[in-house]
């Protein structure tokens, strides 16, 4: 099942057992409230192919049949997904559904966890990122990541942003480096707030500022893709709004994948949305479609807040 481009109305779990198939799928949305809670397990047990369009034209990154294991425990089951250029894709789903795990696979951050094993195909511009010849350092320079909790280094604001360019030798001299730092801080929308205190420690900023500093740090390496792992979960609403605005601006130049727990956030910032459940990609589609007209029963239940 390399691609699943057919329209979802004809795509009701051809591979799963037919006896269970009857109890799920987009046609059963109107099922009674009373039996719903029990049926979720049944639905999950019979999850089959992803509903919706997993492929895009000219993808920046794409995953095909990706399985992820932590020791013996499988965390992700055969996920197919594309990430397009100049687009924000958000990944939503209940806790432990594997969305963060998938995100971390996209720049091989899972390499830092010794028991983690990834199989399947993940590509960046058509090249296998887990291939023998692929260098994780280069990959991570091209695929930047912003983490859940703001994690500025215990260095000055300037040094935080200059860290990546220095590592990779992106600047030839001090003035070039200054340019990179200032541009990055500007792009991250934090320059005006910190321009007088570039030498102050990055850890002294507020939470929202710290997160924007981390974003500036990421874009200073001029990546092609930015991965964001619940970037606003530790922030207050005002800081969140600023970050969301920033994501909108950044999407003009970068491919962005964002994991979020907030459905409103997903609706606000992303063009496409992917819904995960227990390690399986349940449904993908245009954000508007997913939130207004979900086709899979689980998606519908999650979005309407009946579990998760």
């Amino acid at each position, binding site marked *: 099942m390399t691609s699943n481009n057919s329209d979802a109305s004809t795509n009701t779990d051809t591979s799963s057992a037919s006896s269970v198939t009857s109890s799920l799928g987009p046609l059963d949305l109107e099922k009674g409230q009373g039996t719903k809670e029990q049926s979720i397990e049944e639905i999950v047990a019979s999850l089959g192919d992803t509903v919706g369009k997993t492929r895009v034209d000219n993808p920046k990154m794409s995953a095909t049949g990706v399985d992820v294991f932590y020791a013996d425990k499988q965390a992700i089951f055969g996920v197919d997904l594309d990430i397009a250029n100049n687009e924000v894709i958000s990944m939503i789903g209940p806790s432990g559904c594997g969305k963060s795990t998938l995100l971390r696979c996209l720049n*091989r951050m*899972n*390499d830092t966890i*010794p028991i*983690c*094993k*990834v*199989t399947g*195909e993940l590509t*960046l*511009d058509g*090249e*296998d990122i*887990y*291939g*023998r*010849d*692929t*260098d*994780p*350092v*280069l*990959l991570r*320079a*091209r695929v930047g990541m912003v983490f859940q909790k703001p994690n500025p280094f215990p260095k000055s604001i300037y040094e935080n942003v200059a860290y990546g360019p220095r*590592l*990779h*030798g*992106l600047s030839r001299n001090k003035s070039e480096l200054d340019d990179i730092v200032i541009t990055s801080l500007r792009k991250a929308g934090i320059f005006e707030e910190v321009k007088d205190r570039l030498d102050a420690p990055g850890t002294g900023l507020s939470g929202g500022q710290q997160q924007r500093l981390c974003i500036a740090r990421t874009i200073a*390496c*001029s*990546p*092609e893709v930015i991965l964001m792992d619940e970037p606003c979960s530790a922030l207050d609403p005002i800081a969140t709004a600023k970050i969301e605005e920033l994501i909108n601006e950044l999407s003009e130049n970068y491919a962005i994948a964002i994991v979020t727990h907030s459905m409103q956030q997903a609706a606000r910032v992303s063009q496409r949305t992917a819904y995960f459940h227990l390690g399986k990609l349940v449904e993908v589609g245009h954000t508007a479609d997913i939130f207004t007209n979900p086709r899979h029963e689980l998606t519908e239940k999650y979005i309407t807040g009946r579990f998760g």
Partner: protein
Amino acid sequence: MNHTDPTDSETSDADRSSTDTLGMTRSDTTAKVKASIKKRYARERRFRLYGLIAILSSLSFLAILVFTITKNGLPAFKQTFIQLDVTLDAKTLGLGDEPDQAQLLKANYNGTIKKALLAQFPDVKKRKDKKALYKLISKGGQYDLQRQVMESPDLIGQSKTVWLPAGDDASGYLKGMVDVTIPEKKRRFKDNQIEWIESLKQDNRVAERFNWTFFERGDSREPEMAGIKGALFGSILTLMVTLILSFPIAVASAIYLEEFAPRNKWTDIIEVNINNLAAVPSIVFGLLGLAVFINFFQLPRSAPVVGGLVLSLMTLPTIIISSRAALKSVPPSIRDAALGLGASNLQVVFHHVLPLALPGILTGTIIGMAQALGETAPLLMIGMVAFIVDVPATITDPATVLPVQIFQWADLPEKGFVEKTSAAIMVLLAFLVAMNTFAVILRRKFERKW
């Protein structure tokens, strides 16, 4: 395709980074990163190597140390004996007809042995040679003979075949520790002595046995007769005093500090104090012991009781700190449950918290005791460094302890003491390893994750 070990591929990538197939992209980041990546990976490998070297060399220090000690110490567990036919005639012994015990004690056993040696080698005539000959048998040999005669006085007047311990140099030679290729003049063990020993060997008059002397005797000036029994008992007595004093006091103060103490300045001071005491050099505790226990309270010098006092002051912080950690790891839910049933604060602690924390406390105590067992410096201060032959029986007898015995022997010039020192170290290390292993087992067995 399976990528089972990501870290593996991470390092092996380095070599191939120049032929990276990710290819050139529109961004020039890639090109710039690639330019320096080889160097960066080389640095990565170098750094990793430094770490590995550091660990391996630390471990090899350990290996060298253990190897040296074992190599030097193993021969000490063997003792060589020489068989002689001694004639216990009253005249040589210098005894009258009806000798009493006191006379038997002072009889000339040495002369008897010398005579037996001369009988064995009748050709030896020169004074100098005779002296060399006598050295084949240890000076301690006479005490063995003395003991035998005192046990059964009717041996007097008879001939007897006895095994006597070989002298320091002779046993060194028999254990293969004398390099015969060295010119005779530079050797302590001379050619004629070698000749005698070889002839004794041919007569089957030389034997090697397990060295019980080493465990059955106290200190001695003769390396072949020196044993660790006195030091061992001194250590045991000292540790007993230490344990009896430090365990209850440490547990009591840990309980108070962890369970009852209000958070105020005073408890803060106590806490800082305990942490500091744990890092105070041990010799300072020795000074305290000397000034307070010996000069002020007039307690006897060299006694295990003073040693134990000093060591328990020294180990208190260690035990308190680990006991507090153990108490802290008992979840508050258990306290709440017992309190909810109407138990008083003290009952909660003594009935519920303490039993649960006990394995942790014991582990800490054993580690503290192991520390005390290996401690030397403070004991030097309180005079446990005297030359003591007798085995101490009570905690006020003068005594020495194992590490101090090692220190004393290490200073002695006789070659035989090098092996004795190493052997004593092996015994000490064996005790320490046993204690630590026990602590680890205890911890593993009762370790609980709440």
